């Protein structure tokens, strides 16, 4: 692959490190935004993004162009403010893709947001960034400062009449802020709890105004689409999906890391070629394909393509595309306990199944892991998982996502759960 085949981090590799404005522009940076603002109507930009089939990289895979198209434009707009928000609150366990982009290619995000702002007619943008992301924040702030100095942000961008102000909002730190409406509440200074939908943010978002929220990686895909066109972008992907994807692997592999690959690259290729396969003495037992809140896949799934449709058909979700590999030294019960502890802790406390269901699940898993499991516990766990897992059962998708590793774990690693209850101890200890 060449650098242009890897529009997200190809230039970073080529430059041997983080890109400042000068080096970013030397790789063609801001040409996309300049082209969009000076030669394309907003509707043309949206159509192009639709045609390119860019899907949201935050995990849900919603078509970006379609989302942008929901924002009232022209006569349908009331002339009031609209907002563009970047979700940089990367808190999914095992996920570190946005961090890489923010630290190494922050201008790509700025440029993508300028294009997005032009497309929807937003005069102000916010990057809602995870509170612990100190270096990404510094890098992005520097990029924003550089862009302002160069006239790429602020008033009359690229000599057009278009104004766009961009600010960073550092999160006070809750996983739920990654949910776009909880993020908007937090941005407004309210409790970070999700909102009832509808209304969806494109109709009524930040401060009740039309708002688009996209993930960092999503925005970063936009400039190259403008520069190189929809056909080029479509051709980057292997299967039905278009473009490249940042895939990551963590766990006991030889070369844990992050790679920009054609979307739809098979799991096996990612784990065995790029991550170097399992470390000696360890066998792969399961993979959480898209972060902690996705269902386990197991060895039989390794030849599946990492794209939205394929992984969903296998009963999981591509999510963020950053995998956690569970090897055979890890107790599946303990891993589930660990994950459910995290998710129970990160519940916003608004709806009952999440707020009170997850702690109970965590408590049962703790009992089972510590040898206090009793007959009926697994059925009770399954019952909880079933009721927590229905996507309309809860107010937002936090709990259904949270329960996915457990629900699938109970299916794939049933014998481990049963052994804990039967023997009254954890076989891995």
């Amino acid at each position, binding site marked *: 692959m060449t650098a242009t085949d890897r529009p997200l981090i190809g230039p970073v590799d080529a430059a041997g490190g983080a890109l400042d404005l000068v080096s970013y522009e030397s790789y063609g940076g801001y040409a996309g935004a300049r082209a969009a603002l000076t030669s394309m109507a907003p509707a043309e930009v949206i159509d192009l993004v639709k045609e390119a089939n860019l899907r949201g990289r935050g995990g849900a895979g919603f078509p970006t162009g379609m989302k942008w198209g929901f924002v009232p434009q022209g006569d349908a707009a009331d002339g009031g403010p609209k907002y563009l928000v970047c979700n940089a609150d990367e808190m999914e366990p095992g996920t570190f893709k946005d961090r890489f982009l923010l630290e190494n290619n922050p201008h790509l995000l700025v440029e993508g947001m300028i294009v997005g702002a032009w497309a929807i007619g937003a005069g102000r943008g916010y990057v809602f960034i995870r509170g612990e992301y100190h270096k990404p924040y510094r890098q992005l702030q520097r990029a924003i400062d550089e862009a302002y100095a160069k006239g790429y942000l602020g008033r009359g961008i690229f000599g057009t009449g278009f104004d766009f102000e961009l600010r960073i909002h550092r999160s006070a730190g809750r996983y739920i802020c990654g949910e776009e409406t909880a993020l908007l509440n937090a941005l407004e200074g309210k409790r970070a709890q999700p909102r*009832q939908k*509808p209304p969806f943010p494109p109709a009524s978002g930040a401060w009740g105004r039309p708002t688009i929220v996209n993930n960092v990686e999503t925005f970063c895909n936009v400039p190259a689409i403008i520069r190189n066109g929809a056909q080029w972008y479509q051709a980057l992907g292997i299967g039905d999906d278009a473009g490249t994807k940042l895939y990551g692997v963590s766990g006991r592999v030889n070369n844990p890391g992050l790679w920009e690959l054609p979307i739809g690259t098979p799991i096996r290729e990612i784990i065995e070629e790029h991550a170097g396969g399992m470390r000696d003495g360890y066998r792969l037992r399961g993979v959480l394909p898209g972060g902690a809140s996705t269902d386990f896949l197991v060895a039989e799934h390794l030849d599946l393509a990492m794209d939205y449709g394929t992984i969903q058909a296998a009963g999981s979700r591509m999510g963020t595309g950053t995998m956690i590999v569970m090897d055979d030294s890890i107790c599946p019960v303990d891993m589930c306990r660990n994950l459910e502890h995290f998710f129970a802790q990160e519940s916003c406390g608004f709806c009952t199944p999440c707020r009170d269901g997850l702690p109970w699940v965590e408590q049962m898993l703790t009992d089972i892991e510590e040898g206090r499991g009793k007959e009926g516990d697994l059925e009770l766990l399954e019952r909880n998982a079933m009721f927590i897992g229905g996507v309309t059962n809860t*107010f937002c998708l936090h709990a259904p996502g949270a329960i996915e590793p457990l629900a699938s774990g109970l299916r794939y690693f049933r014998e481990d759960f049963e052994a804990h209850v039967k023997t009254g101890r954890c076989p891995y200890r």
Partner: protein
Amino acid sequence: MARVNIDGKDYDLEAGQNLLHACLSERLDLPYFCWHPALGAVGSCRLCAIIDYADEADQRGRLQMACTMPVREGMRVSIAAPFAADFRKQVIEWLMENHPHDCPVCEEGGECHLQDMTVMAGHSMRRYAGRKRTWENQYLGPFLGHEMNRCITCYRCVRYYRDYAGGKDLDAFGSRSRMFFGRQEDGVLESEFAGNLVEVCPTGVFTDKPFSQVYSRKWDLQSAPSVCPNCAVGCNTFPAERYGLLKRVHNRYHGQLNRYFLCDRGRYGSHFVNHDKRIRQAGVRGPDGVFEAGGEDAALEAIAARPRADLIGIGSPRASLEANFALKQLVGGANFCAGLADDEAAAVRAALDVYRGGGFRIPSLAEIEQADAVLVLGEDIANTAPRVALAVRQASRAVAFDMAASAGIPSWQDAGVRGHGQSAKSPLFIASVASTRIDELATATSHGAAPDLARLGFAIAAAVGADAEQSGADDFAAVAARALAAAERPLVIAGTEAREPALIQAAANIAHAIKRKGRDVALALMPMEANSYGVAMLDGGLTLSAALQRMQDGARALVLENDLHRRVAKTQIELGNAVVLDALETPTADAAAVVLPAATYAEQTGTFVNYETRAQRFYQVFEPGGEVAPSWRWIAAIARRCGGEADWAHIDDLTAACASGEFAPLAELAPGAGFRVRANAKVPRQPHRYSGRTAMRANLDIHEPKATVDEETPLAYSMEGENAGDQPGAVVPYVWSPGWNSNQAVFKFQQEVGGPLAGGDPGVCLLGRAEGAGEPAADTVRQASVPQPLQNGAYAAARVHHVFGSDELSAASAPILERTPAPYVLLNPADAKKLQAAEGAGVRIDELGMSAEVRLDNAVRPGVVGIAQGLPGAGVLATAAVHLAADPDFVRASSGDANVIARG
């Protein structure tokens, strides 16, 4: 309407309404927690789960929350589907993880929505084996107890307190399974509507603290439909009694008035009924000046000993219409005084004249909530009629609802409406003496003493008439005039707080000017007390000053439930010959020749006429015992003893006698004693489960007394009878329905959720409800003369009132007393500096011969002083101007809790 199939049966439901609301309107049992009819839906508790089927072929369906689903044509749903039922059971099991099993000692036990929903959902076996989370509770003041361990995190409290009532000091803290609902730190809850938390909380987190101190189970309480006696709004209430104590007051739903909420003066202002200083026996002052309790007969004899011709009657705005009417009949119209000070009487008369002139709507609270532009002219409603202020608060959201509607957000989608509307507020203009607690909602405010505000009002009327929308003027009058003239449902509120007839006239002129623009304008004129309009409409021939002069001259007055010391200066009052009928020992009673023990509102049946001139019947909750009797009975006894014609055996006789002229609608007031439900059943005051009837008095006498047969009303002192909810709304004594033991049962008593009571909302309006009310009478739009600004360095004296303490009866209620401040004055900081008096210091008011605490208020216009009226120890303001001086010897008397409510 939309045809919806629910569990195989077709229903016609309101299209677009949320499905939970619509199901409850059909009286279906669908469990819920977080939804509230007045607060809308937020989808937090996930209890109202149903199965939504795509079509007839769909056997599987999809679990959905009814509260967040709009009703649509052709919808097929199931409440009973096993999966939905099982999910609801699971939701309860989750909620019960941390809920303590303290039902036996919980005040909510027996009327707990959580208990009801737990039983209804079928959760009965506990499987959660972990630890329960625990909290330290907070001190929230004298009104509310706090027991956070019981919390099931439904968010109703904060949604009510903050979003609905505008409170600031209660919030949701923490996250995940450790949500805490309370204040940032211990302290009195500031909102004067905090008490509703008792009824909003679905379990026992927020409890009625005074009730807890004398606790009984709901099923052991005897109650009756009643009307709050503590201001002129006439909120409907359920006072409840056991063992002769009035134990608590709960909201009684009225579709047009208070609906789901009371104010704290109303909720906690009835404990005067239990006061130590109740007059329990008739007394005649002996030669030694000491009262002798010689029984009824001796007292009546003492009264009859002097000729009847020499008797005058002083009525009362806090006594029932019937008692006032009886007194007027006894003494004759020419010798009857309404009992209001002359200036207040003039203001009340002016208001009634405006109402009589017609030409606009007199709005109910529900109509006030629907207004889309409001002017409050010279009446501090948050302090004089708090429930009206709460309604105005809802009216200020009209524009937000409009914005939501145009964005396709249903009005019941609470978070969506609030999020979309943000801080958008409908036009609200407030002209007042001082800052008010709804100023934060106002488009603009203007301040001054009453004459200034009256001038402002006339200017607004002129601006409306002069097509101010054409002018670019941006002063208060012009802006208010433009907004009111442009509104679809404009509302003007004024009142008699200032005792300034010109203010009333100005408000009327504004309403008429708007009316001439073709707008459907509403005008509410607030009097000060529960029956101010009722007694004033009786139209006695004596002013109070004339009555007092007659008393100075030796006439004998029968003073009905009226402490004259609150109305005029002590020096004008001569009570040596007076007969005083009252429930509480007042300075007036103390000075009388004869004292007769009067029943309180809870101990009798009668009628109050509220600010709309809505006459409403309140029924006896319990028998007072001993010599205490309704005032009208005493008056009837006096009449008989004196050879009069007062032949009223029952309250119905008296009401009927009164029902002529303007009072003719009283014939339709409420069911009389002869009313029966279906199979000749009376309406029980006691719930089915009322316990201990044979034993509750056994500590006094082992013989069970025969239950009183109530010959006065359709109600019975019994648990036997029918209260199924289809009887007239005026005779619903409590709400209960199988499976619904909490106040949530109210939906079983309504025509639809939030609609009128099944048997109609109670009360009849005496004035202004005539169909097609015509043009105003010419004399009601005259330009009233207004006093001119004061000279000579005096301060313009403005009456101000305090929600807790300014009202006589509620101020005698123990919990309210804890929140009652010492007398105070409101001064502009510049004036205070001139007087060298800081916040909390004292100033002497020469004309009142007393000192009061200084409170600074930037809104008070320089040269004006607001003088708190009615507070215990406050003098009676009778002059338009006062002279002030710093009082270096002043000692601040207010307690901390009493000062929690800032004026604005």
